[in-house]
């Protein structure tokens, strides 16, 4: 069965510092990879996705992620965070060839402090 592991449940960081949110997945078949952001009392908003092609994926709000097949990782990065980036971030996968239901990690709460 597929699983997604987000290694950090909480990440505190100061404003304008770089941040990396880690995600590993388990799969022996091809997968599609996603990062979503959830602000308080809101639904999920897609930040970026990897379907194929270049392993470095750029998303909205200055975020990017790198797909590493050998390490089964898809870490999310931002070079300089803002207070407004404070939110919960979810990594998710879809197994290639499936109907498309997402399997999510437990989330990482990013807190940006002034």
């Amino acid at each position, binding site marked *: 069965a597929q699983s*997604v592991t987000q290694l950090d449940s909480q990440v505190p960081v100061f404003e304008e510092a770089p941040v990396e949110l880690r995600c590993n997945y388990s799969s022996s078949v091809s997968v*599609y990879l996603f990062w*979503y952001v959830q602000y308080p*009392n*809101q*639904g*999920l*908003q*897609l930040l970026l*996705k990897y*379907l194929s092609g270049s392993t470095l994926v750029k998303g909205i709000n200055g975020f990017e992620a790198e797909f590493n097949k050998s390490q089964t990782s898809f870490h999310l990065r931002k070079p300089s965070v803002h207070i407004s980036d404070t939110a919960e971030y*979810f990594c*998710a996968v*879809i197994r290639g060839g*499936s*109907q*498309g*239901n*997402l*399997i*999510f*990690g*437990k*989330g990482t709460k990013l807190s940006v402090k002034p």
Partner: protein
Amino acid sequence: GAGVSQSPRYKVAKRGQDVALRCDPISGHVSLFWYQQALGQGPEFLTYFQNEAQLDKSGLPSDRFFAERPEGSVSTLKIQRTQQEDSAVYLCASSPGTGLSIVFGQGTRLTVV
């Protein structure tokens, strides 16, 4: 509509009460998904529709949970005889085809007291 619309946004139910949660997907979206998000957890898949056909209900936690999409558009998730463990945010999502371009609604927060 412009996005996926869910109603109500908040629902408080007494234990044992039946509830119905509504999802209005983006017009023309073929696929519709329901997810359950418990406090402090990631969303978990409940069920999937392609048009009016419910193709996967493997994530429904018990036979108290029932979902329908009779005309291939609006969907309703019904929970009978609610229990405290049903307290969660229920997220609806839709996409034009598979889940590769999925759009989420804002969710319905259900609290069972």
